[in-house]
């Protein structure tokens, strides 16, 4: 199981705990990761402000062209925004030969060429379909006995393509949560948007979106929220205090990456699980499990 790990920009900073825990569980599960040399930002969902569609397609295509030249393995994108931007452009390039030709004309400025053969995949897809629930189960040393986890999926993890999970009722993250010995609580708002890249600039609106998700998680018995997207993790965790202040709520629910829960269940250290990087400590909840 060899992959290009396209970590993207947030896994180098605000989502560094995703990266640390992913590398730790990758070792346990026999996955090897290689960085795409000289990768560039995917543009995320806000790039339309500065770039036209072709520029955004070129940003994504450059990464895939590099991956093709450096070995052609599947690109594994843990960040849902990276995943969806790369994947969306990849689909377009594979379906529209005239667009691929146009993009290649631009890539030629950097002596690059993309033939359209790379596959872009989300971490949840790889964990479920390549590694498999059985192997994950077998790696569990300290089961998260009965811990009620709200598996928040959000938007871009499965939408719009739904290539590996349902776009309306996804189940994969919950199956992984259950494989760790925890309980995946039913959580109707798991598919609603947290505000994504608009959070910082549309605080008032996004507070309400995040509040509704947090409330739904808590009301359904969730004691901890799990996610596989750095923007969801950031928005739901880092803004909790300010949401409480602005909307008169009283949330204090830890928000972790699914890879962090896996690392804990695999019996790895607190540092390998990157629990020390959380703003809202998960220790009390995890100790009780």
């Amino acid at each position, binding site marked *: 199981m060899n992959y290009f790990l396209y970590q993207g920009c947030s896994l180098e900073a605000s989502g560094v*705990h995703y990266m640390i825990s992913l590398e730790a569980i990758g070792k346990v599960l026999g996955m090897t990761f290689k960085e795409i040399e000289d990768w560039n930002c995917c543009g995320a969902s806000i790039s339309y402000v500065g770039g*036209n569609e072709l520029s955004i397609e070129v940003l994504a295509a450059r990464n895939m062209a590099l991956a093709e030249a450096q070995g052609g393995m599947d690109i594994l994108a843990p960040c849902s925004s990276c995943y969806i931007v790369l994947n969306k452009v990849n689909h377009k390039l594979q379906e529209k030969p005239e667009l691929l030709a146009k993009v290649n004309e631009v890539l030629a400025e950097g002596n690059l060429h993309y033939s359209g053969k790379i596959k872009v995949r989300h971490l949840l897809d790889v964990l479920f379909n390549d590694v498999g629930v059985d192997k994950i189960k077998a790696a569990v040393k300290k089961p998260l006995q009965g811990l009620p986890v709200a598996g928040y999926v959000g938007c871009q993890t499965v939408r719009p393509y739904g290539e590996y999970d349902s776009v309306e009722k996804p189940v994969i993250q919950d199956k992984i949560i259950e494989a760790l010995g925890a309980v995946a609580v039913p959580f109707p708002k798991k598919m609603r948007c947290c505000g994504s890249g608009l959070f910082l600039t*549309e605080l008032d609106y996004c507070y309400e979106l995040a509040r509704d998700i947090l409330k739904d998680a808590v009301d359904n018995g969730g004691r901890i929220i799990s996610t596989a997207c750095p923007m969801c993790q950031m928005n739901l965790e880092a803004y909790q205090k300010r949401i409480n202040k602005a909307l008169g709520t009283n949330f204090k629910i830890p928000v972790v990456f699914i890879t962090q829960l896996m690392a804990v269940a695999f019996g790895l250290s607190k540092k390998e699980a990157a629990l020390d990087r959380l703003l809202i400590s998960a220790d009390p909840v995890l100790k009780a499990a």
Partner: protein
Amino acid sequence: MEQVVGPNYDPQANPRKAYDQSFAREVYQKVDAGDEIKMCMQCGVCAASCPLKDKMDLSPRKIFTLIRAGQREKVLSSQAIMLCTSCYSCKVRCPRKVPVVDVMHGLAHYALRQGYKPREETALFGDKFWGNIYRLGRIDEKDVANRYFFGHGIGAGIKMALDNRDMGLGMLLKKRMKLLPERPIKNIKALRKMLDKAKAMGKGGAA
């Protein structure tokens, strides 16, 4: 709001406005993904699926019909075209397969190039975000945030930075912030050349 569509619209009252196709043609030709709205049948599933629909002055469905009705000013100055969170709820449910997210982004990009500022904060942030990509090839989160704060002016920037200090401090203490400035990627010059060329070759209303 002036009635421009729907059962109460009286084309006789203003016959020149009735079937003005010029703006629709402009959108089909110049806006990225603009021609996709030809498929829209006005069912409203996009609006019903949108997490920020309540905050929008016009729903995506209304935007599409206003384009057909030639309402250039209303569409390009609409807040809604910059309130799309890119969650793709609309896209997966659209029975006519309109990529609503791409159309909204295309319209926003075009409106900004035409001098409209539908949502100023997001426009400023997006501008700094793109600036990072062009300068470095990657995003340096703290740099984008600071440039966005201080893009409001020194005084307002200091206030915004202070308002966000507990979060910034939290990120710093938990080592979730890069301390050193991000360095450009190795082939940044080639990347810039590509972006310049794509800007010139693509749609979107670049001068």
